[in-house]
């Protein structure tokens, strides 16, 4: 019974080169009964090794770490353990960093000074297979998007999407696979793939990471 309860807990690996930050985060996370911090790492290499050894559900990675940075560490961890959800902690709110983290396969992107509620919610969200961004990030990305559209006087490419494509965009951004979406919408896998190709062409995005970023900027997901 007790073992089963422990198994249900979300196993977390915490990687940050600042001891103070790590201690604070651990304190924060252990305040939650359903979380369990199973390992800590103070640099990228340690994080990769610890992820291999302790098989966590979620890895919380600081981007700025010695030896191996958080982005590269995320890629390596996902390469050997594809099921793990990665939440990146960063001091940067710039979309360049967000895009890089998404390309590396991160599910969540948090500003380091975000409220403690964000981290707890982020971990819960990514374990459900969805993406999570700090509210400042989504707000900023959306604002940038609106400003660009307005400044260039260009058409909002979102308006070009059909309702079905918008639906598929949202599901993709939430982390669903083509197969999941086919099942949910009662469509053939081929149809879903076609829709996805069309919407990527319309939005002029070339990768899954850019697609997610677009969804965040448009406020399709948060």
């Amino acid at each position: 019974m007790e073992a089963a309860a422990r198994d249900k807990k979300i196993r977390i690996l915490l990687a940050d080169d600042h001891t103070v930050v790590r201690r604070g985060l651990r304190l924060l996370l252990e305040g939650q009964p359903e979380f369990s911090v199973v390992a800590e790492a103070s640099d990228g290499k340690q994080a990769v090794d610890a992820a291999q050894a302790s098989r966590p559900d979620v890895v919380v990675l600081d981007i700025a770490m010695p030896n191996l940075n958080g982005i590269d560490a995320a890629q390596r961890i996902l390469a050997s353990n594809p099921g793990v959800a990665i939440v990146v902690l960063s001091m940067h709110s710039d979309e360049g960093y967000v895009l890089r983290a998404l390309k590396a396969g991160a599910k969540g992107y948090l500003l380091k000074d975000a409220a403690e509620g964000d981290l707890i919610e982020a971990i819960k969200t990514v374990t459900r297979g969805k993406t999570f961004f700090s509210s400042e990030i989504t707000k900023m990305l959306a604002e940038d998007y609106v400003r660009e559209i307005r400044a260039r006087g260009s058409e909002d490419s979102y308006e070009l999407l059909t309702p079905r494509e918008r639906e598929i965009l949202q599901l993709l951004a939430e982390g669903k696979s083509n197969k999941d979406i086919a099942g949910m919408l009662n469509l053939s896998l081929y149809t879903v793939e076609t829709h996805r190709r069309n919407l990527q062409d319309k939005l002029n995005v070339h990768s899954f990471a850019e697609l997610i970023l677009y969804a965040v900027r448009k406020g399709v997901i948060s």
Partner: protein
Amino acid sequence: MPDSASTSPRGHERLLVGSRLTLALGFGSLLLIMALSGLDALRVLQNFRHSEAQIRRQFLYRNHVLNDIRSEVYVSGTYVRDYLLDPETARAEGFRKTLEQVRSQMETALQSYAGQLNPEEAQHYAALKNELARYWDILAPVFKWSAAERRSIGYAFLRDDVFPRRQNMLAIADRIAALNEQQLNAANDQVSGLLADFELRIGVTLLIALVLGLGMAAFSVRRILRLEQQAHAQFLAVAEARSQLQDLSARLVQTQETERKAISRELHDEVGQSLSAVLIELRNLASGLGTRADEHTRSQVDLIKSLVEGTVGVVRNMALLLRPSMLDDLGLVPALRWQAREVSKRTSIDVSVAAETRSEDYPDAYKTCIYRIVQEALNNCERHSHADTVRIRVQEERDRLRLSIQDNGCGFDFEQTKGMGLLGIQERVASLHGTCGVHSSPGGGTLLTVDLPFRSSTMQGETNLGSGGARQENPHPIG
């Protein structure tokens, strides 16, 4: 001349003045020698011509006079013979008169010869004169002879007295002619001597002029070579100083970048992270306080929290202003996009970045150069151009990286702007052996273009250096 004197400006001046004086003296005396010897030659030639003509004239004249005398002696002999042999008294009288005439002519000729007499001839002249006098003396009694006398002793007289005398006189005249000829030869010899002297003088003058000229030429060549050497040395010194200056300014720029990077990292990672930790602790404290704490304590914790949050923002901005971490973490194009977004957010200018790049990252020197140029150009746009659109374009070609920045503002003079300005841009570009150009026209906006060639060795070196440097200075390649 010691090197120190020849390389110092004062020494150089002294050398120049010395050279001028020596050259003036040398060439002056050379010209003087040539002019004098030329004049001398002219004078000698004139004298020569003059004396030759005179000698010739004298010779001819005297020859002429002598010939006259000789022919008159001859003729007189003939007249005497005719007189003696002619039986008619009246005709004889005519001959006598003719003879008198001949005698006076001969005397005139002798007189005129006496005017041109020279010492060697004097003796012969006197002999001739005596002989003539005796000749006439011998002839004098003949005219008193009767016809019979003339017939009986005339021939004997002619044979024994007149003809030998005449022969004698002719011999004397020949001697004088020979002397005259000798004199001509002597005069000719004298003239040849003069000519030989003149030849010698000309030769000596020529030799002196040649030696002096050679000396001058050698001196001038040496001076010119030395001046040339000095000019070359100075040119090299200036070139070296310039390259050192360029090197120095490039190093200054590089040092500034390194410093900025270090401070930015320090601020961002150390100060920023510590503040983040403080924030986390504060949040833990706030949640730990829960409902136990009173309103006052809770609001104080909130106040501290917002103060720290503000400070985190300030520190982050400072770090980004010094050197955006994107440049090192994400590469050139993301850093440019960030910069464009920041300017767009802060001002009403729409800045867009179009990138046609193959490589994710470039050597540090290249991306720093381009980033700083874009930063400067955007600053200028913001302050001077009143543009509302700026298009930044980065193109990677096989062997070069091109940047163009086009705004739609009113155009402005880059030279007049503050900050790094065009000079700074040019220096940065020059340090990478690139070129840049500004095309600005009123109403047509400003186009700044930069062309940075990749130099295979530089690229390699810079990359190695860059990544090596980054590893050393920069424990967090991404953050």
